[in-house]
């Protein structure tokens, strides 16, 4: 599997290997990567892993969109059989959620950056960190098995009782989710302990970069919510194996209980996906505006607030399931409380640009695209949080469009922005900025073309998870498919720009963007132990001392 072998190519691209000591050249050989305890190498391996998973999920997404080019009213003339279509959307959802979005930012970028931004040598438990990675690999193998086995067709939500009677490899998939859950828990645990106990002298809580606040809040959710998913998946596997009946209506069990158990994890999981993305945007907006973040404390507190409120709103996935009226109303009210901290963050990001010095380079373009798309995603959440409109919109394409605006327009765009932002630090190579901006633009247009029509489809009553549709929806579906293809092209361009930089990119300076956080104090790529001497910790958003040095092409901190 490419996940394991790809990291080997990383050091090979370094012509000057042997001349300087960095984490890539520190040691060589397959085992030096496979058994590494270095958080940076583990982060890079995660990066390759999650991007492979994203590619797989993306291909599945394109299959969905291509199938929906025609209404498919004659099921036997359609490109995919109904059954196959169901398997494709199930795996698209499961791969994207469990293998890509959840580990993407925390495990890949977070692992690489957290200790460096904090000013420590490593995370608190490096062995556990490597263990998390191999748990991820093991979970991914279970998922690949269910991809090539008879086909998982339950939807990524595994709702009972359908998942109990489905012939697909539900047990393999649930065990895969169970294992991935532990990978996620251990990563979160590691991060919390690192931030709590290993901050160097001078790194107070309010001198932490906002990315760390976001990762910290994320870790709290990972640790508190994921075990509940673990037990739910275990009970579902037991349901299939032993017929325990807890979620099976035929044995007097309660399918609604499954939904509660499932969403108790999976709603907070939405914040596992979006909070670190918000952290990245906070960094990107301030560094590329060359100005401190506006309302630091509000952003920090709102991360924690989102993490905590996120636990109280899972019921909004079940408004139409027949919960008691009071429960439904309380969940709706709580849902609206989560919207406020997110809104505050958006305003603060805009405020950050005010009177700054805005460099419109690739990471910044991604960050601006994020704000545009995430705002749409957030605002459309209002329609779904309000009870009477949700009665109409629940389980339609409106929901699909809403969460893709948040998950993909939010998390994926932030992930790409962050990847471009820290790419010089991670690989020591500068990428082609024009290519990067081009990729961002294609992705932005393609994305809106894909998902804006889906809002209309949903409002007009197109239910989700349908392999066929009424002919009058065809135009909107075709627009969406064209958008998806465009999106695919944009992502390919982004990939090419990054790959190109590995081979032909110029050497990255220490601080190419003018960041004030600690990761820009160490060389690019960082040395094995991150800092040769203990870094001096200052205000992470004090840009008044950052100056550009045209000779080295790098920013530096005035003494």
């Amino acid at each position, binding site marked *: 599997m490419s996940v394991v072998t790809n990291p080997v190519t990383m*050091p*090979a691209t*370094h012509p000057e*290997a*042997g*001349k*300087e*000591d960095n984490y890539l*050249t*520190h*040691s*060589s*050989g397959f085992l030096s990567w496979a058994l590494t305890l270095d958080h940076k190498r583990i982060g890079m391996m995660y990066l390759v892993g999650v991007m492979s998973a994203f590619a797989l999920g993306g291909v599945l997404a394109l299959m969905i969109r291509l199938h929906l080019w025609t209404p498919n009213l004659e099921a036997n003339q359609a490109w995919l059989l109904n059954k196959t279509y169901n398997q494709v959307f199930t795996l698209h959802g499961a791969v994207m959620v469990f293998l890509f979005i959840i580990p993407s930012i925390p495990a890949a970028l977070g692992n690489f950056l957290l200790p460096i931004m904090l000013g*420590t*040598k*490593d995370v*608190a*438990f*490096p062995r*556990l960190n490597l263990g998390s990675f191999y748990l991820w690999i093991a979970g991914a193998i279970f998922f690949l098995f269910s991809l090539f086995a008879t086909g998982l067709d339950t939807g990524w939500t595994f709702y009972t009782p359908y998942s109990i009677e489905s012939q697909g490899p539900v047990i393999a998939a649930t065990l895969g989710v169970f294992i991935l859950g532990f990978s996620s*828990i251990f990563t979160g*645990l*590691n991060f*919390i*302990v*690192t931030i*709590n*106990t*290993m901050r160097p002298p001078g790194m107070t809580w309010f001198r932490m970069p906002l990315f760390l606040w976001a990762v910290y809040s994320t870790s709290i959710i990972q*640790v*508190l*919510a*994921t*075990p*509940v998913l*673990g*037990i*739910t998946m*275990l*009970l579902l596997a*037991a*349901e299939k194996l*032993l*017929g*325990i*009946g*807890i979620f*099976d209506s*035929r*044995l*007097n*069990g*309660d399918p609604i*209980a499954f939904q509660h*158990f499932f969403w108790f994890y999976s709603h907070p999981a939405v914040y596992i996906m979006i909070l670190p993305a918000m952290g990245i945007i906070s960094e990107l907006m301030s560094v590329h505006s060359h100005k401190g973040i506006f309302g630091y404390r509000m952003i920090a507190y709102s991360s924690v607030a989102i993490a905590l409120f996120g636990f109280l709103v899972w019921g909004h996935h079940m408004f139409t399931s027949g919960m008691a009226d009071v429960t439904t109303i309380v969940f709706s009210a709580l849902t609206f409380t989560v919207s406020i901290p997110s809104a505050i963050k958006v305003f603060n990001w805009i405020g950050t640009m005010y009177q700054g010095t805005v460099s419109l380079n690739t990471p910044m373009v991604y960050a601006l695209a994020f704000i545009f798309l995430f705002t749409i995603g957030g605002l459309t959440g209002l329609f779904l949080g309000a009870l009477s409109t949700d009665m109409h919109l629940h389980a339609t394409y409106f929901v699909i469009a809403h969460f893709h605006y948040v998950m993909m327009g939010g998390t994926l765009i932030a992930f790409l922005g962050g990847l471009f932002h820290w790419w010089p630090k991670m690989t020591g190579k500068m990428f082609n900025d024009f290519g990067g901006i081009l990729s961002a633009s294609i992705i932005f247009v393609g994305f809106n073309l894909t998902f804006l029509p889906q809002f209309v489809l949903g409002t007009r009553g197109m239910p989700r998870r349908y392999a066929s549709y009424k002919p009058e929806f065809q135009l909107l579906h075709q627009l969406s498919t064209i958008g998806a293809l465009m999106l695919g092209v944009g992502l390919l361009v982004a990939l090419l720009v990054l790959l190109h930089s590995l081979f032909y990119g110029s050497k990255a300076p220490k601080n190419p963007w003018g960041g004030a956080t600690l990761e820009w104090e160490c060389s690019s790529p960082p040395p*094995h*132990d991150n800092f040769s001497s203990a870094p001096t910790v200052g205000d992470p958003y004090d840009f008044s001392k950052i100056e550009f040095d045209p000779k080295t092409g790098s920013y530096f901190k005035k003494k």
Partner: protein
Amino acid sequence: MTTAVAPSPTDHEHDAHHEHPAWLAHHFDDAEQQFDAGKLGMWIFLVTEVLFFSGMFCAYALYRNRNPEVFEFCSTFLNEKLGAINTGVLLFSSLTMAWAVRASQLKQTKTLIGMLGATLGCAAIFLGVKAVEYSHKWGLGLFPGKYYVSQVEGAPHSTVPYLWYLCIPALILLVAFVLYYVYAFVSASKFHLRVAGPLVVAASCFFGGVKLGQVLEAEESHGDSHASAGADAHGHEHSDHAGHDHAKEVSAPSVNLLGEAEVVTHDVAVSPAETNTPESNVNQKGMAGLFFSIYYCMTGVHAFHILGGMAVITWLIVKSARFEFHSKYYGPVDNVGLYWHLVDFIWIYLFPLLYLIT
């Protein structure tokens, strides 16, 4: 890529530079930071464990709230004596574990290994008793969910030797540990002897637990069969237990319901005419079966945690036998101790919630 690496500080040089002792990981500044990190990590892990179990406690609360009579009916199948013994055994093991932590701080290695061995032994006794409980229920057909067999008076017990199946892994381990002990004895390795001793004792404890469980289970089923048999001819065989049997009859009236329809001493009693209407009968897959699903899930997951605990305690014994622990480095013992107390603590909730309903 070439293997030529520029002169750079290797880990060893680096450690020497900071005067890091071997037990202190290179990325920690000092012993205190390492201990704090380990401790916080373990506490967070315990939080995840509590949440992991909380899912099942929620399921328990949901179904008990919905069908309280099912839980009352079913808990009479659980032998509270065995549960109580196991509670005692686990509480005692918590004591020995705490003692082990103290011994590791004081560098009393002999006591440390002894206490860890005792904890391991208690865990094995617990599992032995559990094996008797499980196999007894399987023999009666008290399986989870859709495999639940409605309990009918006089139905033959299953002849499948479930208890043997459960004992086989323990037997294999016992043989392996005895062989290891013999090897250690022959090679006269003090280290191996220190490790093998506790393991042999612990593996034997499992069978002690099985014996204990069988004795108590046998007592209980004597009482049961007599009470429920009523005018059954078998009653004569137990006439010498008359006093005990009477007490049993009063304490567990619902046992009488297993088919003796005329004994209507309990609100869920069913007359023969009503047995066809499913709602009035708890003795079926969707009712009692669901209770046993919850019972097996909760106690089973708990038992897996005991097994996990035993594995890490064995690891601690190996480390102790190498004299690794001292007043500045005893974090692993302390953290495993925390974990062990949590496992104990969960059982303290499981016991009343499952066994002591009526």
